[in-house]
């Protein structure tokens, strides 16, 4: 399993990378962490004429946490984000989800941006970014634009990235420090892709708005799905067996599960409901204030 021939380019600036992309277009593939691309090269599932190695572009590896936001460069290693003190403090949902991604040697090379741009329908990070209300910053030779995570993931292995665009950073607001969160996943083995997973981020309210939540499931559809109906149910009252059942049903209805070797569609559908309910329960336990706020001010979702 050896790659076919290719030309190799290793730019050191974003501008250089973008020029190469513009020059080679669909003949080129971007090499980020390589944990998804290199297996495909080895299997000869892809045979690009040009490989553009992004690992030499230092500015893309930055992790910035300022006040209420993080900005993670697309080439930041998953392991670096997982062990970053401020990310651990501010975005525990992200850190917990990362621990479900494969194994440490994969995360030592794999990048946040690479995983997001690859968009495997059973990957964890895309769902988490939607739950965190993240934005993707895309750059081409001529322009920069911002795409909310919810619109970024289009279909399996396809994102909103145009052929001449590079994902340069991901930004997300820091959830309130008391905000509850939950992440639950079923996989065949530790570290495998999700058969079904749910990322839940509670968004405590304030004087201006009611508390809300994001419930995003993955592994069960063409792309990670935000299940608004489940979010409404979660926000409308205290946790109960009925509410638990309603959340499961809402998730089961929302997903369009696919079937593969590891599980049939009905299984993913059922498991997604279970994961969502469990993640919601964990989120409520963690976010002590949430229930109090919710019960004071039922209303619109954030």
């Amino acid at each position, binding site marked *: *399993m*050896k*790659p*076919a*021939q*290719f*030309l*190799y380019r*290793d730019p050191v600036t974003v501008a250089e990378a973008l020029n190469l992309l513009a020059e080679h277009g669909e003949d080129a593939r971007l*090499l980020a962490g*390589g*944990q998804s691309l*290199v*297996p495909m*090269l*080895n*299997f000869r599932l892809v045979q690009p004429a040009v*490989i553009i*190695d992004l*690992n030499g572009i230092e500015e893309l590896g930055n992790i910035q946490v300022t006040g209420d936001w993080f900005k993670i460069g697309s080439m930041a290693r998953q*392991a670096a984000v997982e062990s970053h003190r401020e990310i651990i403090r501010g975005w525990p949902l992200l850190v917990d989800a990362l621990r479900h991604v*494969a*194994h*440490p*040697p*994969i995360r*030592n*090379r794999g990048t946040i941006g690479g995983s997001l741009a690859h968009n495997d329908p059973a990957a964890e990070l895309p769902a988490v970014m939607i739950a965190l209300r993240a934005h993707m910053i895309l750059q081409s030779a001529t322009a920069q634009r911002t795409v909310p995570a919810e619109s970024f993931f289009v279909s399996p292995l396809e994102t909103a990235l145009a052929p001449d665009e590079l994902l340069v950073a991901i930004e997300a607001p820091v959830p309130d420090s008391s905000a509850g969160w939950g992440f639950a996943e079923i996989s065949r*083995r*530790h*570290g495998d892709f999700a058969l079904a997973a749910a990322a839940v981020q509670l968004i405590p309210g304030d004087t201006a708005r009611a508390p809300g939540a994001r419930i995003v499931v993955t592994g069960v559809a063409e792309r990670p799905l935000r299940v608004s109906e489940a979010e409404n149910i979660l926000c409308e009252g205290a946790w109960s067996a009925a509410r638990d059942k309603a959340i499961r049903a809402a998730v089961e209805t929302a997903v369009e599960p696919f079937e593969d070797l590891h599980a049939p569609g009905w299984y993913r559908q059922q498991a997604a409901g279970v994961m969502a309910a469990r993640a919601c329960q964990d989120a409520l336990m963690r976010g002590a204030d949430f229930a109090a706020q919710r019960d004071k001010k039922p209303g619109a979702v954030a």
Partner: protein
Amino acid sequence: MNGERRTVRTIINGEPFEREIEVRLLASDFIRHEAGLTGTHVGCEHGVCGACTILLDGAPVRSCLLLAVQLSSHNVETVEGLESAQNLHPLQQSFWEKHGLQCGYCTPGILMTMKAFLAENPNPSTAEIRTVLAGHLCRCTGYQQIVESVVEAAERMAQLPDGKA
């Protein structure tokens, strides 16, 4: 050969190593056949089995998922660099004592991962060891004697003057 070529300039187990190669050459093949260090093994070439794991700037990575050209200007450590001139590394000693290997094919990758792991986690629980070990497939041992070997290595290393090999 008609492929594009580059010169790799890297440091392996503390020694500089330089070779001109085809850009598509995988790092695993480079280490084994260009540098002649055959202790790192190839099991799957898609990053799952872990046999090819080396330390890149101190962090365990799959050499089968790296291009050789990506090794330039980085530090590579392989199993051949574990022992010192006088002694086996405590991990090697412990695996020997506790029967932590049978065919030995998956072993070098595990040793490299555990070297880095114990450096960060000098007193791990068996649960923590198993979580990290899960990144390595072994068909011979059923993992139990590997876990026991790592536990013993941690104890050995704790007794060393500076806590590390």
